[in-house]
């Protein structure tokens, strides 16, 4: 089992790095080429969400991304924000997306979750085992 861990300070500029690493490890693990765009987008969304939460709560702690390829390609993105902030993710219905009263933050969060749920068949969002925070866990099959 190969594991790659990446932790980065919660700044938007580093999300691209996390995407690049995530896709490189996915390719190495044997994830099908036609899934790599989805892997890239999903890792980006999970990291964007974590960065937004850290900034919202003024947390300087790093965001952790862990990639492993034990039988499948599993990616965990861990934030350290209070749990009640992380779990309440909902996708928005289309008639609400262009609603005038919807804030940009709420829209982006809703759209981000729709992308995660739409692109990742095996997706879990749950409290971390120890301490404060939420873990977004995504799994893709490997092998051709």
């Amino acid at each position: 089992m190969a594991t790659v861990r990446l932790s980065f300070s919660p700044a938007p500029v580093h999300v691209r790095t996390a995407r690049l690493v995530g896709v490189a490890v996915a390719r190495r693990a044997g994830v099908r080429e036609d899934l790599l765009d989805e892997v890239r987008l999903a890792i980006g969304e999970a990291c964007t969400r974590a960065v937004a939460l850290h900034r919202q709560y003024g947390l300087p702690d790093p965001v952790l991304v862990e990639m492993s390829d034990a039988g499948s390609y599993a990616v965990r993105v861990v934030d350290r924000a209070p749990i009640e902030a992380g779990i309440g993710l909902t996708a928005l219905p289309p008639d609400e997306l262009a609603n005038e009263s919807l804030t940009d933050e709420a829209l982006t969060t809703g759209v981000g979750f729709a992308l995660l749920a739409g692109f990742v068949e095996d997706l879990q969002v749950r409290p971390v085992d120890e301490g404060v925070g939420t873990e977004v866990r995504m799994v893709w099959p490997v092998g051709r």
Partner: protein
Amino acid sequence: MELSLATRTVGEHTVLEVGGEVDVYTAPRLRERLLELIDGGARHVVVDLGRVDFLDSTGLGVLVGALKRLRTAGGSFALVCDKEPLLKIFRITALDQVFPLHPTVDAAVGAEPTGANA
């Protein structure tokens, strides 16, 4: 790839050509440019995503913001996109039901009557 932004005018339409990656880091620059255009008087805006190779929720949020702003101002907003991976993003988020999406700039400009047929 870095974000690239270029503006041109087609009739009464302002066409913003976007290239590269639109994500949580670069989306604020796209938002600024769209606000500059709208504040500068552009009322019929077409955003050409033809050279975009990555678009995330932050970028989508910026596009929805521009759509709302132009609607409030009595203008119009349309997107040009013919790449399947990007179109899938619009379908999954249901934003294909929110944005007018066209395969080419010509189609977007032709489909957006600026007066009589509106």
